[in-house]
């Protein structure tokens, strides 16, 4: 919301100044007259008005599309961008011949691009909108392969009895590992380390828990 005050010899005069200054039509403004309301022929006194303008924010989807297509254009990569909006999230699907490059090793490039996109498109917004980037269904595939991986490691832990420490993962990836194994009565999982990249430890549940 933008609130400004303008003065003019008449109310119409002041309003014209407001229109020119804000670059909008007076129909978009809510107007309140502050002084000089009912004084006819009051020479020399100015009419002061206060105007309220509801600023329409550009939709996030448009911002994201503009940012990403402009970015890839600089290095000559063709992309098509599709968006799907929810209340507090915006899902963005990138279609490109260079999907592998954009995803990067274990999704690192895609994660970085997502972080930067979130910061940039939310910079001047009042309400933070989480942007989730995906490319060629990478996230679904990654989720499936992480689930398979978790089950495989859990099997190994059961056979050998030795705990396994996985490579560092981001919170979303760790969540998938924990969720996949949470209903296994023989297996326990725990995140270890500091920062956003932690390692998940997969180990046997201690037997005494069953004896209780």
């Amino acid at each position, binding site marked *: 919301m933008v609130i400004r005050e303008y003065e003019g010899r008449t109310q119409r005069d002041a309003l014209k100044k407001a229109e020119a200054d804000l670059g909008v039509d007076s129909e978009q403004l809510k107007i309140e007259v502050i002084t000089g309301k009912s004084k006819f022929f009051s020479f020399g006194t100015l009419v002061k008005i206060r105007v309220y303008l509801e600023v329409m924010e550009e939709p996030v989807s448009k911002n994201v599309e503009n940012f990403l297509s402009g970015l890839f254009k600089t290095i000559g990569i063709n992309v098509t961008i599709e968006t799907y909006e929810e209340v507090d999230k915006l899902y963005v699907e990138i279609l490109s011949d260079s999907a592998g490059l954009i995803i*990067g090793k274990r999704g690192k490039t895609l994660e970085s691009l997502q972080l930067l996109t979130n910061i940039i498109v939310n910079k001047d917004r009042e309400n933070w909108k989480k942007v989730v980037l995906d490319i060629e269904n990478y996230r679904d595939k990654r989720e499936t392969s992480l689930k398979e991986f978790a089950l495989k490691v859990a099997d190994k832990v059961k056979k050998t009895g030795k705990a396994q420490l996985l490579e560092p993962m981001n919170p979303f990836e760790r969540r998938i590992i924990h969720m996949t194994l949470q209903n296994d009565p023989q297996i326990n999982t725990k995140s270890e380390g500091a920062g956003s990249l932690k390692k998940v430890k997969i180990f046997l549940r201690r037997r005494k828990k069953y004896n209780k």
Partner: protein
Amino acid sequence: MNEKEFLLYIIKALVDEPEEVEINVVEGEKSTIFELKVASPDIGKVIGKNGRIAKAIRTILNAAIAKSGKRISLDILG
């Protein structure tokens, strides 16, 4: 150079004073060094908490330059 444009595009979108952004590229045999200068109130915006943003920029800059087989180094000058 395209990678310079690529980096410039990201940095200008991140900062509040895009006209103050300067990038100097030093080409080496195996690596390319990008020296980045921004207005001092914007330094935090390109580094981020614990260097999160700077790290993300390095990651995608590496991807953008991958075709050439070179390594990159991004120096943020205060």
